[in-house]
């Protein structure tokens, strides 16, 4: 990015819902219906074992997933250790651990298809 005396031009940050691939979103909505209950409070992220050591953020991952920004979600997912603390913290009863497992499942099966 070119720096104009301390100023720079930001990358456009617009989300095109029509262009994004919603396959994972639909898959998760079907397999983990409780994921729709999320209010984005971030309790899961606050208590996260992996989040304590790195920038892993479950709330963000589920948001990316819902928007169809699958690629960014994929990279983040590899950091989870599935300890399940997020699930116990969640005030809405979202099965966060299952959501992550299903996302990993989805990625694995789709990767097989791509290969």
């Amino acid at each position, binding site marked *: 990015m070119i720096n104009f005396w301390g100023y720079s031009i930001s990358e456009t940050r617009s989300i095109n819902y029509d262009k994004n691939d919603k396959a994972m979103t639909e898959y998760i909505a079907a397999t983990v219906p*409780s994921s729709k209950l999320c209010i984005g409070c971030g309790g899961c992220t606050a*208590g996260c*074992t*992996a989040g*304590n*050591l*790195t920038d892993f953020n479950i709330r963000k991952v589920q948001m990316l997933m819902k928007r169809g920004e699958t690629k960014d979600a994929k990279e983040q997912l*590899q*950091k989870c*250790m*599935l*300890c*399940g*603390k997020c*699930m*116990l*913290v969640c005030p809405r*009863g*979202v*099965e966060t*651990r*299952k959501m992550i*497992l299903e996302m*990993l*499942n989805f990625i*694995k099966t789709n*990767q097989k298809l791509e290969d």
Partner: protein
Amino acid sequence: MYYDHFVLPFTIGLITLLIYLCFKYYKWIKSFPREERKKIRKGLFSLQTIRSGWEIFRESLLHHKIFKTNPMLGYMHMTFAFGWFLLIVVGKIESMVYHTSAFNPPYFAIFFRYFHPANETFPYSETFAFLMDLILLFLLIGITLAITKRFYSRLFGMKKTTKQRAYDLLILTVLWLIFPVRFLAESFTSGLNGGGSFLTYNAGNFFGSFLPLEHLSYPAWWVYSSLLGLFFLLLPFSRYMHIPTEMVYIFLKNWGVKQGREYNGYSEIQVNACSRCGICINTCQLNSSCDINDIQPVYFLRRIRNHEPLSKQAENCLMCGRCEASCPVGINLNAIRQSQRPDTIRVVKDTYAYVPEPEVKRAKVAYFAGCMSHLTPGIIKSMQQIFEKAKVDYSFIDERAGICCGRPLALSGNWQAAQIVMDKNQEMIEASNADILVTSCPICYKTFKEDYTLKAQIMHHTEYIEMLIREGQLKVNNMDVKTVFHNPCELGRGSQIVHAPENVLKQVSYKITTVYDGKKSLCCGGSLANTAIDSGQKTKISGDTVKAYTAYHPDVIVTACPLCKKTLSKTSTEIPVKDIAELVAEA
């Protein structure tokens, strides 16, 4: 020479069965990992072989464990197994005494009444006839009980009995018919030629009064032989495969063969050793609380055996181990289920690379609270107080940068990723140079013991507190509170820790004895192992568990696991739920 064409169905069936079994067992045992096969070679000529023989007598014939579950159910299983066994053994002895040779053909003893002319007596022939009739009566009572159980399973302490399929019902009918037909065949022959004892002799006379026995006797022997032959031919493809396989399994188990992470021939033997008695259905809380009826081991193992889709059933299990503890055959149900969960996480070079190099204080005792304990700070605080009170040189190793123990990953089938986490943890624990590793979480405890190779002694905090009290390092007072103890699944059934927590609890409170003590404890419902049920169903299980303990009117429900504490506290609104460490810190 004693021979008639009607012995052919029986003989052909028996020979085919024996050949098939030899072939199958050879194939399964060949697929064991090499070190497991070595154990067989080592164990074959050891005391364990004799011990196995005794266990086979006790379990496969007398069904001692089923007796402990329910006497009626045990009696039913015993009449079948032990009765049939006696019928064969006493029959064989009878034929040997008559024939004065051990080498008569196997069918001779089975159809002895047909071949033996009744007027010809031999030593103790009357006693033998009496015994054989008595054993036959014993078996007929067993069949009556079995038929009753199909319709009134509650009489046998079973709320539900196994749902069988058409094929299983066919062979079940064949089995049920074998002994009544034998009874008829023997009675008809006795009615014609005499012989028999109180049962068949009298029945023969009775039938003879209104039936043309001379036309019925010979066909009855054909039917009896055909039923036996048919039973032998159907056996390998039905649940009755458990009869020979359970014996093989008992030998292998006693020789020290272990069920590993992978599904192999040993798992195959265990799957075939399941008798589908259905006891696991009754102990399963998913059945009693959530009315889920297709995932219990009896059905799950059947799915494996029949190669049916099972991914959904594999996930729908709390892995609480209640079924495993009650299984009369002692099958490794949890390990087999875990082996059916897929490894989905792709492991690369930088998987979990963000975990920092361990920076821990060196001390004699390393304290690993575990992820879940960080959600229940009360437990950690209490443990710190206990350490300080007992003046222990300890290091809180996962206070700041702790990671998961890896068991949750393993429970979901992801062993490869779990191994990375385990290696990192092992490094951290070793960096503390501790002699004793204390953990507050039974999930961590189990995996530390089974999957890690640690030099330090591994203790759950209940064991450690018990040791501190025993050695006089920690003084406690008996408080005036009534408590019940909920033994966490991973601690009691999972790691065999039963006495330590109960001893500690008895020293700090008045512990009420419950039917759920020790390995009979209920699951809290919060288990990480089940990803198929939703939070509502988990709450239902946890609510039912709390209800069961509340019935004893305790002041406090005590547990020894942060996950159980968290789960039970959500549903126990009236009675507080505490960890044993919190109680000890107060005392």
